[in-house]
C-alpha cells in the first residue's frame, strides 16, 4: 500500500532530480509512442539527436527554433515568479506579430533599415505587452483568475489574426491564400551567418535573458514580485503595491512574447500568415518550469527544445516518424514535471498492507 505523509522541506537533490527524471520519463513515453509506428525508438532518438546537433546546418536550425523559446520563457519567468500563471504567451505572440507587421507592411521600402527594425521591434513588444495587460487588469482590479483569461485571449488573438488574413491584410496577389504582402528587406531582421537562418533575434534573446536575470536577481522590483508570488498577504503587510507590480510584470512577460512573434516573422517567415508558430508560447511554459524559473538555464533548455523540434522535422523526413512525437515528448515532460510537485509536498512510502 502507498502511504502519503505531508512534508515540510524539499532537499536540493530532489529539486534537481525532478526535472531530470521528468525529461527521462518524457523520452520513455515518446519511445512507447514510437513503438506504435513499428520503429525502433533508439534509432529514432539517434536520428533526432543527429538531426538537431549533427551538422552546422542542423544546429543552426536548432538555434532558429530556440530563439522564440528563449524570448518567451524569459518573459514567462517574470510572471511565474510572481505566481501569475500566464498561459497566454500564445496570444501575446500573435498580437506582437500583428503590431509589428502593421509597420513592416505600411512603411515605405525606402525607410532606413535600422530605424524600421527598431520601430517594428518596439511595436511587437508593445502589442504583446498590451495583450498581457488585459488579464493583468482583470486580475488586479477584479481578482479574475488569470489562467482562464490568458487562455481565452489566445483564441481571441488567433481569430483576430484569421480575420486580418482573410480580410483586410490579405495580399491581393496571393491568389486567395491568406498571406500578407512579403516584408521588404528593410523590415527583415538581418541573418547572422551565411547559408543559415539564424537571425538577429538571437541577440535580442540573449539581451532579454540578461535583462530578466538582472531584474529578478538584483532589483527592488524583482524582490517585490518574489514576495508577492510567495505570500501576497506579506506583500500587502509590507506595503508593496501589488497592482503596479502585476502590470509591470505582465507588460514584460507579454512584451517579450510579442517580440518573439515579431522576430519570427521578421527573421524567418518574412510575411504575416495564419501559421506563425504561436505554439512556442506553450512550449516555453515547459521550458520555464524545467529551468526552475532561472532565465539562464531556460536559455540552455530552449536550445535543447529547439533541437527537439529541428530533429523532429528531420526524423519525419528521414524515417517517416510523425512530427507529433515531439509534441508527445514535450507534453509528457510537463505531465511528469507537474507530477513531481506531489513529491515536493508529500513523502510517499511503500508498505505492505499488514492489517
Amino acid at each position, binding site marked *: 500500500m502507498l502511504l502519503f505523509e505531508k512534508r515540510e522541506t524539499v*532537499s536540493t537533490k530532489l529539486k534537481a532530480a525532478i526535472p531530470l527524471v521528468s525529461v527521462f520519463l518524457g523520452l520513455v513515453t515518446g519511445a512507447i509512442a514510437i513503438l506504435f509506428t513499428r520503429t525502433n525508438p533508439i534509432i529514432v532518438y539517434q536520428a533526432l539527436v543527429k538531426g538537431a546537433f549533427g551538422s552546422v546546418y542542423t544546429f543552426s536550425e536548432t538555434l532558429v527554433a530556440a530563439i522564440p523559446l528563449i524570448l518567451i520563457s524569459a518573459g514567462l519567468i517574470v510572471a511565474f515568479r510572481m505566481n501569475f500563471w500566464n498561459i497566454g504567451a500564445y496570444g501575446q505572440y500573435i498580437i506582437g506579430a500583428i503590431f509589428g507587421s502593421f509597420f513592416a507592411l505600411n512603411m515605405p521600402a525606402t525607410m532606413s533599415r535600422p530605424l524600421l527594425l527598431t520601430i517594428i521591434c518596439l511595436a511587437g513588444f508593445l502589442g504583446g505587452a498590451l495583450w498581457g495587460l488585459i488579464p493583468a487588469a482583470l486580475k488586479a482590479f477584479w481578482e479574475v483568475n488569470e489562467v482562464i483569461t490568458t487562455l481565452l485571449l489566445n483564441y481571441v488573438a488567433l481569430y483576430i489574426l484569421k480575420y486580418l488574413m482573410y480580410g483586410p491584410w490579405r495580399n491581393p496577389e496571393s491568389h486567395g491564400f491568406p498571406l500578407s504582402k512579403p516584408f521588404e528587406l528593410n523590415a527583415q531582421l538581418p541573418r547572422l551567418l551565411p547559408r543559415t537562418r539564424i537571425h538577429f533575434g538571437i541577440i535580442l534573446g540573449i539581451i532579454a535573458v540578461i535583462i530578466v536575470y538582472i531584474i529578478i536577481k*538584483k*532589483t*527592488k522590483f524583482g524582490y517585490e514580485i518574489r*514576495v508577492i508570488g*510567495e505570500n501576497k498577504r*506579506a506583500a500587502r*503587510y509590507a506595503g508593496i503595491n501589488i497592482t503596479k507590480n502585476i502590470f509591470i510584470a505582465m507588460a514584460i512577460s507579454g512584451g517579450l512574447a510579442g517580440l518573439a512573434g515579431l522576430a519570427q516573422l521578421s527573421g524567418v517567415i518574412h510575411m504575416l500568415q495564419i501559421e506563425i508558430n504561436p505554439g512556442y508560447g506553450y512550449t516555453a511554459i515547459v521550458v520555464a518550469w524545467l529551468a526552475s524559473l532561472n532565465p539562464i538555464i531556460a536559455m540552455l533548455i530552449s536550445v535543447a527544445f529547439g533541437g527537439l523540434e529541428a530533429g523532429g522535422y528531420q526524423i519525419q523526413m528521414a524515417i517517416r516518424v510523425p512530427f507529433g512525437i515531439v509534441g508527445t515528448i514535450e507534453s509528457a515532460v510537463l505531465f511528469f514535471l507537474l507530477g513531481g510537485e506531489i513529491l515536493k509536498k508529500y513523502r510517499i*512510502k511503500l508498505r505492505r498492507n499488514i492489517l
Partner: protein
Amino acid sequence: MDEIIVQAKGITKYFPGVLANNHIDFELKKGEIHTLLGENGAGKSTLMNILDGIYHPDEGEIYIKGKKVHIQNPFDAMANSIGMIHQHFMLVDTLTVLENVALGLKSQGLYIDKKEISKQIETISKKYHFNINPYSKIWQLSVGEQQRVEIIKTLFRKAEILILDEPTAVLTPQESEDLFKILNQLLKEGKSIIFISHKLDEVMEISDRITVLRKGKVVGTVHKKDVTKGYLAKMMVGREVLFSLERKPLKRRGEVLKVKELEAYNDKGFKALKKISFSVFGGEIFGIAGISGNGQKILAQTITGLRRATRGKTILNDADITNASPKVIANKGVNYIPPDRLKVGLIPNLDTTENAILRSYDREPITKRNFIDHQKAAEYAKSLIRKFNIMVPRIDAPVKLLSGGNMQKLLLAREIAERPKLLIAVHPTRGLDVGATEFIRKQLLKERDNGLAVLLISEDLDEILMVSDRIGVIYEGQIMKVINIEDAERNKIGLLMAGVNSPKN
C-alpha cells in the same frame, strides 16, 4: 480498573533533520486522564498523530487492549476506538455540523441519512450539555463550539480513547472549565483520555498521571498527587523557571495612539469593531484581553491600514492616519507583529535575509536607485541575528525551517529595528516555548522602558497580566473596561471577557 488500554513502545519518528520522537514509551490506563506535557516542538503532536494514523512510526509498536496494531490512517484509528481532536480543527467551515459529522463515515454511501444522524447528534449534545444545532454552519460557531463539534465527531464514531491536542489553547478560562467538566463526565462513562498541554495550572487541575516530553524523549511519568507545578516546569524545560518578570516602574509619556469610535467589518461582512475607543501612551504597554474573535485581529488590521475603517479615526501623534496605506502608516512609525507569523509577517519560502529586509528593502543603504545591494542586505540580516541571538540553520535557509521562537525573534527584531513610535503585537508568544516566550516578553518590556508605546493584543490572560500597564477588555468589538494593572483581578477580567458587565469605556 488498571487495565492498560493503549501502550506505545519505543516509538521513534524522524523528520528531515529532527528526531521528533525518540524511543518513546507511553501507556494509557482505562478510565484515566493522562496528560502529555512538553514545550513546543517536544514531539507531543507527532506522537499523537502516530496513534491517529496520520504519521507512521519509523520504529516501535503500538498495542490496543494488549493487541498489537498497525494504524495506517485515521480510519484504522477509528476502528480501534481512537478519536483525536487536533490542535487545528479538521472541520469544513462552509458545511453544517451534521455534514461535518457525516463526512468520511464509512457506513454512509452516496446517500446520507440526515434524520438519523441529526437525531444522534442531538442525543450526544443533550447528554453533555453541548447545545449544538446540527444544522448550524461551522463558520457560525465560536471556537469553543467548534471544539465541541469535534468531540461530537469522535463520540459519534464510538471512540473509547479520546486524544485532545492542546484543546485549551483556543479557549477562555471559563470555556476551559466547561471543557474540563465534559472531560470528567466522559471519564465517568469509562472513556480514557489523553490530554495535551503546556499550561501547568490546568495540567495540575485535570490530570491523573502526567508524562513529560522534552526534545522528543520521555523525561518521566508521574502521578499528579506526587508533584508540584514547579517540579513539572523543571521537568519540562530542564531548568528552573520564573513565573513572573521583573518590571521597572511605569514612566508614562505623551499620548501616541488615539483610537476614536473606530468601526470596521470582518471578511464575512459583519461589523467587528463597534465604535471602539482607547489611547496608548509612550512608555506603557496597553494590553487588550479578550476571547479570540471579538475583534482583536480586525482592530490591529484597521490601525495598520490593512483593513478599511468605515467610521471613526486613528490618530498617531496628532496626525490622522485613518485609512492611510499600510506603507504610509509604517513610515509614520507604526510597526506590527501580526498574529500569524507564517501567513502574514514572514515569507516562509524565502531566506532569513529576504525576510529581514521586508521593511527596509526599498531605502538606502539596502537599495540604491532601484538596485538591491545583496551584501548590505546580508549585513543587515546578520546584525538582526546577532542582536537578538536568532538561531538559523544557514543564513540562506528558508525561514520556515526556523523554530517558532526564532521566527518570532526575527520578526520582532525586524519591526523593532524600524524604531517605531507604536508597536502593535498580536499574540506575540502564541505557540512559543517557555524560553522564547520569556525573551519576547522581556524585549517588549525593554522597549516600553525606552519610551515606546506598545499595544499588546493577546488571548493569554497570564501574559497580559504579566506585562501590561493598563488592560482593556474587548468583547464583541467594544472595550468593556480599561483597568490599571494594580486593580486587575483575574476573575473580574475573565467575566468581562465573557461579556459580563455593562459596556462602558
